[in-house]
């Protein structure tokens, strides 16, 4: 009724304003949706770590409690699985990063027969489906009559972590001036001193990144571990086992804890970078 009274031009203006509003906020809306999509599952995990479930299933909200956090290891087997996962992740990331750094150095610094092939082989584990890796390794271990357990898990984890370490460190080494090492030698540093005083400090950020990446990949690996663990249970295996009979809220607690630790490390890193940038300028 009133729309009839509104002159045509004004109506067109309203339309234009609305369209303009949509256009201006489209990106914002899209971004909000995108982050919601990414973060909602995590939010649910965190929320349900405070749930007080009735019965076996932690799927519906029953009420708030601190109990799950207070008794985080109240479920049989959860503690030992976490300890095992941490041990494996720590050892695997250290060994894989050390080996990966050396491989990266060789690939970037020295021209040797088979360098191209090695480069391709390094990418193979990254592109092979994990299930194939796990199954192949199982076959290998079976044929070698190896006893499955801690060491087979560790070997498997080091194997798939090395490629990530190589790729991470290599990216850094490719970017830095190789004359730097020549300059060090020119100034009287022998090979070892050059490595200690120049190569290593300059690759340190990449080595640290490789270490963290390997740790993160190792600690949540399920597929490869499942094939090669024997009767040992890592945390992901524990969660999988528990999920079949109803995962306890403690699983959410550990998940949340890992998430919080990761976020804290990341934020600390960002802060350090920002402070460093400020000091430079």
């Amino acid at each position, binding site marked *: 009724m009133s729309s009839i009274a509104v002159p045509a031009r004004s109506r067109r203006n309203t339309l234009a304003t609305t369209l303009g509003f949509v256009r201006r906020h489209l990106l914002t809306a899209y971004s909000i949706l995108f982050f919601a999509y990414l973060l909602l599952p995590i939010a649910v995990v965190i929320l349900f770590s405070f749930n007080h479930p009735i019965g076996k299933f932690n799927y519906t909200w029953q009420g708030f409690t601190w109990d799950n956090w207070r008794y985080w290891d109240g479920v049989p087997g959860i503690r030992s699985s976490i300890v095992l996962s941490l041990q494996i992740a720590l050892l695997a990331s250290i060994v894989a990063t050390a080996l990966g750094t050396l491989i990266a150095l060789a690939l970037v610094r020295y021209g040797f027969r088979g360098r191209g092939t090695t480069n391709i082989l390094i990418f193979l584990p990254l592109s092979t489906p994990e299930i194939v890796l796990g199954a192949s390794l199982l076959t290998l271990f079976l044929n070698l009559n190896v006893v499955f357990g801690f060491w087979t898990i560790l070997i498997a984890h080091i194997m798939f972590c090395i490629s990530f370490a190589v790729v991470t460190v290599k990216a850094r080494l490719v970017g830095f*001036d190789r*004359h*730097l090492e*020549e*300059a*060090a*030698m*020119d*100034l*009287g*540093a*022998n090979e070892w*001193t050059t490595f200690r*005083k*120049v190569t290593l*400090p*300059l690759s340190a950020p990449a080595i640290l990144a490789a270490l963290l990446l390997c740790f993160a990949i190792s600690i949540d690996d399920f597929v490869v571990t499942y094939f090669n663990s024997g009767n040992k249970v890592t945390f992901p295996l524990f969660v999988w086992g528990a999920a079949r009979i109803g995962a306890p809220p403690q699983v959410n607690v550990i998940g949340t804890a890992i998430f919080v630790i990761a976020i804290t490390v990341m934020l600390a890193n960002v802060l350090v970078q920002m402070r460093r940038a400020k000091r*430079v300028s």
Partner: protein
Amino acid sequence: MAVEERIQQSLERAAEPSGTPDVRLDRVTKKFDDVVAVDDLSLEIPRGSFFALLGPSGCGKTTTLRMIGGFEEPTAGAIYLGEREVSGTPPYKRDVNTVFQSYALFPHLSIFENVAFGLRRKGTRGGILKGKVEEMLDLVQLSGYGKRKPRQLSGGQQQRVALARALVNSPRVLLLDEPLGALDLKLRKEMQLFIKRLQHDVGITFIHVTHDQEEAMTMADRIAVMNQGRIEQLGTPDELYELPQTAFVAGFLGISNLLRGTVAGPDAVRLGDGTTIRVRTGSLAGHTGDVAVGIRPEKIRPDEQDPNALPGVVRERAYIGVSTQYIVETRNGNVTVVVLNDRSGTVPHSPGDHLTLSWDPEATFVVDPMEEAE
């Protein structure tokens, strides 16, 4: 080990008879797979000189420098630093230091620590170290910059840090690998004079690799012009410019007009069109048959009656401030002429003008014609 080695070397340096060249290359050849980078090169670089290796990219000049520094090993031949043969000796046991094209300053170390790097390797510590580093930073006009990191410095400042870092070790020889390549023109000119003065002050032998003929001529006492792994000519800048011995040297250093002809008697050459011109007395010695007569553009005068004359038509004119450059078409090819604008009021020649070019026979040089002269 390396420390004792270096101390030993400086003792040797002091005991050498004067006149021993600081660097001597004896029939050095370097091959990369099948590519010959340096071809049977022999060279002596006298103590205290500012020596330039000049040539186009790929001529082997940087490879030669890297062999002296110890970063490449010769395929054949021997390299001497003073009286000591250094083939097979790693860079850290050689009494030379290098200024890299990229400067190669250690980005994780302060300017002070960059300069102190070599001294620390020799075991210098405490007050002596601090004194030497600060004295050197002062010499390159960077005192007070010690605490900064390389990336906080401008290109020219970084370049001076690279010089300080090398010179603080008082090496027998300082190697400079295209040290000014990354700087803009104005700064490059400043640094050329700065480095030349620095060399004069410290008295260390400098070997400077460059593809920039003007830079080499500005800075060096002696220049070796390299081409395809060999030395084309070695001499002082004015020798190379005034009396180039090959068409390559004539073309690489400045502009030169090369007129092709055949020997037609003592000090006379008949050009392609039949004109006979006179050349500098004695410059045809050793030449027979086909030759090329070279004249520098600034030595040719338009419309003046020097003994040698060649008629032509102006094709192009370019005003360059201090001078005017003409391209004149003659029956023996295009000739570049440069006329100094030192008198106001002279009417410039225009494209299409007919004129006669003339020059003094003493201003010519004779070289073998290039295989495929353009």
